[in-house]
């Protein structure tokens, strides 16, 4: 049971971080379908950093991992910002390209590093077991990740920033009615850049949280299994509001955790349901949830539409 809670918390943290990222980007008016790729890049940066730091002191590992993975995500999100804000590109296309690019680039990068060390090692796996120990707080047999704590702090911060600061309210204005925002002197392009970069920051953190959930090495050929998109489903279910997103993330995290630990429950194991069914569960749930919540969605009105000053 404690294992189920442990996994639920960690997967919920992943989904919450990434969904909050999507939330910032969409509130500013840019649809970020590249979150999956941003997660991969954050995971790559974090994994390599952890691999390099090995058994350095806990504080260094924690801070280092968080900073490197968040910055990797942030830097990667520049690709989306430039294309969609400065060149009015199709945001769906750019997001998709970013997902494919991240998967390919991460695989190429890790393989090249592995080959450089040993020409016969053509795997795309990064090992970071030693450093991972520093990320975990042990409470008896229960393991809590520092990244979960970071996620909760960032949840509160997101709520405060979006609703209680001038920056947040201006950001949301750019996603609702950029023309109106522009007319009162808000720089729409700048706000959208901020929104996308914040989503890159959070998405990168989500990536490292995902690959440190339970395992101590990661094969980058497999990417992050659609988690970036699950996070978008969480965001829609949470109606673009931080607190609701957190609750939605817990629900989705629970179903994802089930597929990791179902065999530990006698009554679930007795049902003899194939593992694939549990693996499918989060995706099926998200389809159902989307079917019931998308109709009356509170999506930012201007999301996905490049801002054109001349139509003001």
């Amino acid at each position, binding site marked *: 049971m404690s294992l189920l809670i442990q996994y639920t918390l960690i997967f919920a943290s992943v989904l919450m971080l990434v969904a909050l990222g999507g939330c910032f980007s969409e509130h500013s008016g840019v649809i970020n379908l590249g979150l999956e790729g941003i997660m991969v890049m954050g995971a790559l940066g974090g994994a390599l950093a952890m691999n390099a730091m090995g058994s350095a002191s806990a504080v260094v590992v924690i801070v280092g991992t968080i900073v490197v993975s968040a910055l990797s995500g942030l830097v990667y999100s520049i690709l989306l910002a430039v294309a969609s804000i400065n060149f*009015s590109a199709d945001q769906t*296309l750019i997001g998709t390209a970013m997902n*494919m690019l991240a998967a*390919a680039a991460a695989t*190429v990068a890790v*393989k090249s590093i592995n080959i450089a060390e040993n020409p016969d090692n053509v795997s795309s796996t990064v090992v970071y077991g030693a450093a991972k120990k520093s990320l975990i707080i042990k409470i008896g047999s229960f393991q809590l990740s520092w990244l979960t704590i970071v996620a909760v702090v960032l949840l509160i911060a997101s709520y405060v920033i979006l609703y209680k600061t001038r920056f947040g309210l201006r950001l949301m204005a750019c996603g609702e009615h950029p023309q109106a925002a522009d007319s009162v002197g808000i720089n729409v392009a700048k706000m959208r850049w901020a929104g996308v970069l914040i989503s890159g920051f959070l998405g990168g953190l989500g990536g490292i949280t995902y690959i440190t959930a339970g395992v101590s090495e990661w094969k980058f050929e497999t990417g992050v299994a*659609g988690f970036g998109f699950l996070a978008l489903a969480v965001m829609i279910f949470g109606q673009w509001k931080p607190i609701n997103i957190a609750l939605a993330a817990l629900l989705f995290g629970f179903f994802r955790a089930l597929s990791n630990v179902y065999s530990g429950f006698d009554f679930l194991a007795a049902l003899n349901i194939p593992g694939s*069914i549990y693996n499918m569960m989060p*995706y*099926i749930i998200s389809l159902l949830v989307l079917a019931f919540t998308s109709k009356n969605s509170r999506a930012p009105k201007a999301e996905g539409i490049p801002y054109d000053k001349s139509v003001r």
Partner: protein
Amino acid sequence: MKTEKKSFFSIPAVQTILASVLCIVVGLLVGYIVLLVINPKGATEAIVTLLKNYLIYPSTPAKMKYLGNTLVKTAPLLMCALSIQFCYKTGLFNIGAAGQYVAGAGACLFCALQLKLPWIVCLLAAAIAGALFGSIVGLLKAYANVNEVISGIMLNWIGLYIVNMLLSGVKETSSPYTVTLSSTNKAALLPTLGLEKMFSNNTYVTVAIPLSIIFAIVIWVILNKTVFGYELQATGFNKDAARYSGMKEKKNIILTLMIGGALAGIGAAFLYLTGYEQWSVTQTSVPGMGFNGIAATFLGGLHPIGTIFSSYFIQHITSGGAFLDKNVYPSQISDLISAVIIYLCGFVLFFKMFLNKRSNAKKGGTSK
């Protein structure tokens, strides 16, 4: 009134081809730079190998044989690209093509290996399975306003796990791969119509290749020469205007995605019914064919005939990647180049605007 001579660069077809060539050049350049970073010594040779693909073989029969292999994989890629393109014309981004492809693969292999049916039935089953997956996306989009990209991705994963379960009954006992068609049910292999003789007896070369080109032409005709195609494109341009003029936009969305799904499903049958590949029931990632289709469709300037060539190009460099010395360079460099090309395709609209602005400015200058 004298007709003004149009600038060469303002002809839309010229712009489209120019944009695609530019995307390819920059994409390859990025790939080359990455190769240089990994290992500067062999980088030039590596990019040449990638571009040469089967041409690295000295003898003509070997060249033809491996050209055949590239074409075998071009056919499914073209079908996926057409699927995405058809939907994009209606304003729908069918990233679910990857899952529809998976559904098609599952259906045709199940019919071929478990039920021992002939190829034509397997092909139809693949089309129906793909259409079914597409219609789920369509229904959700039309009646529940679900973003087709997100539902498409969800179905990609659902499809993968369903197919893994479905085909685990027909896998080889000692490996995760499905049993071969040639050992289980020869009747399910696509007919070769003697085409294999042109490619040094490469029996994977089947009717799938000419059929996929015929499909491309049919799609072009449907989109440009029929009322149905006109309605779809009108819905893509302006959903509300289309509805106002009496088009059933909900029906069109569902129908489009069904057809798109069927195309992707047939694409899978075009690969798996040749016996070229077996399905691994333990695979944990969605096959890349559907995603590469996105590259092909945008590189082809969203035109069915252009897509024939771009599909070949994308497959050419993807197959070329396999010839790299894998102890120096990862073969995924090809995927990286494809991804860069898609990213650059996002800038095409801006590029065209730039060209038009420039040629307009020129015109203004000369008339003064």
